[in-house]
């Protein structure tokens, strides 16, 4: 079965990196068929940025993520940009500091509030909020164990390994506030 994931935020939050690490985890650590795509504005830092992953146990023909099953939104602008693509039955993980308004999602979309930026601050490095989000994602979806996502983080983000792995664990162990849209 095909599943579509989108990480969205602003440039420099590491959304494309998130999608690359997840693609590594699903495609290499696990054995799924995976395609990772990305979009970012020419302004790069501060512009819109998204990293997409489509995975399946069968060959992927259309590589594009059009209606994410899971959206990780790390900025209010990302919610604004991608809410319309989300269909009933899909779910959204939103950062509880960077996002405050989720009224644009239609009914039937489940919203999970997660303290990703806050936990990254606790680790002492806000830029690893994206790694926290991978931990949250892995636990929430049940797609990857902590060990599996850890292997992908080590492979694709070898710098600041200690900080990253601490952030990943905090994300994996977080309790989520969940509401229905």
């Amino acid at each position, binding site marked *: 079965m095909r599943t579509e994931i989108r990480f969205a935020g602003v440039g420099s939050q590491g959304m494309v990196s998130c999608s*690359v690490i997840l*693609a*590594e985890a699903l*495609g*290499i650590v696990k054995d799924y*068929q*995976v*395609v*990772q*795509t*990305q*979009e*970012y*504005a*020419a302004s*790069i830092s501060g512009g819109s940025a998204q990293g997409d992953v489509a995975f399946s146990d069968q060959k*992927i*023909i*259309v*590589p*594009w993520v*059009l209606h994410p099953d899971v959206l990780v939104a790390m900025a209010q602008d990302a919610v604004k940009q991608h809410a319309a693509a989300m269909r009933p039955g899909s779910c959204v993980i939103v950062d509880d500091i960077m996002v405050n308004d989720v009224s644009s999602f239609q009914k039937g979309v489940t919203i999970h509030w997660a303290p990703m930026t806050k936990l990254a601050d606790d680790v002492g490095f806000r830029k690893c909020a994206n790694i926290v989000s991978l931990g949250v994602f892995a636990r929430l979806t049940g797609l990857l164990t902590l060990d599996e996502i850890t292997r992908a983080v080590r492979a694709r983000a070898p710098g600041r390994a200690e900080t990253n792995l601490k952030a990943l664990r905090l994300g994996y162990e977080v309790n989520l506030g969940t509401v229905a849209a």
Partner: protein
Amino acid sequence: MTKRLLLGNDAFCEGLIAGGVRFYAGYPITPATEIAEAMSRRMPEVGGTYVQMEDELGSMGAIMGASATGVKSATASAGPGMALMQNELGQSIVAEIPLVVINVQRAGPGIGNATRSGQMEVMQSRYGSNGEVPAVVLSPSSVEEAFWLTVKAVNFSEMLRTVVIVLGEGMLGLQRAVVDLPDYDDIKLAERPRPSVQPDEFLGNYNANALSDVPPIADFGAGYKSILSSVGISRRGGGDISVLGLSEDDQDFTIRRLHQKILDRKNEITLFEQLMTEDAEIVYIAFGTQALSAIGAMHEARAKGIKAGVLRLITVWPFPEDIVRTCCAKARAVVVPEMNLGQVRLLVGSALANTGIKIVGVNRVDSITITPAQILEKTKEVLS
């Protein structure tokens, strides 16, 4: 085989290396920069040379010279860089210097939108240079195909003694997929024809007598009097290539031969994928990444009982009119989805002239991919 999560631009790079390229001169440009980055790292590892050039003109000049010494050579760029390269591209084609140039297309004219993707250089690839030069252009749809097609591009450039353009796209160059790369030693490589005579019997690099001839080329430094001419006119039967004394016949012969040597090998270099076209009343004709949306639309259409088929053009130039006609034998209509305002649609229209088949486009120039749903919508419209 090694399973890797590979970036499209890295697949282009590995395809060049697997194809035997050992000289790369480049100038960075989004969304092709990763090719230069990867080549700067990989060339020294495989005993090749990477040169960081001052601009795209320099890149082309450097690879022309390197290839003249017999080393397979390549560069990569995007729209604005490709525009700058047109002079040397044409010169390399008429001088018959084997080269591969990868164009990772960005969106828009002028400087365009650097980080966004498009398919707007179908016609530039063919008609960008002056003076009736031919083009060989291949367009991959996936990361894995980016690798294999780049290997083929190197082989075709050697076999034909010409420039082969690999027409990529930003949304492919910056896409990652899990790919099994083969052992490069197992890949069959082509080599340009080289002289079989002694240096004193060599009649130069343009010793052609028939229009289909790809004449031998002597490597600079191999002891032969090897002159490469970008004049574009050479003497039938080889020998002196100075412009003075060349006849109208020489000019006619040279220009026709530059095309005919490619057209006579069209069967070998025309690559395409044909899906469910046998009974198709509607055929989607597409290339590059957008062909994947067409395939997605075909499956959805078939599930709804619509007899749809796909012709995915892998070789874009020379344009395969005959294949288009064969695939559309039962078609009432053709839909051409492409991220431009109808460049391939124009060619399809020409191929299907006087057949009565309705030809419509689905066109986007906003850098957002055409979706299967959009193609389906157009299908219903055109069949109603």
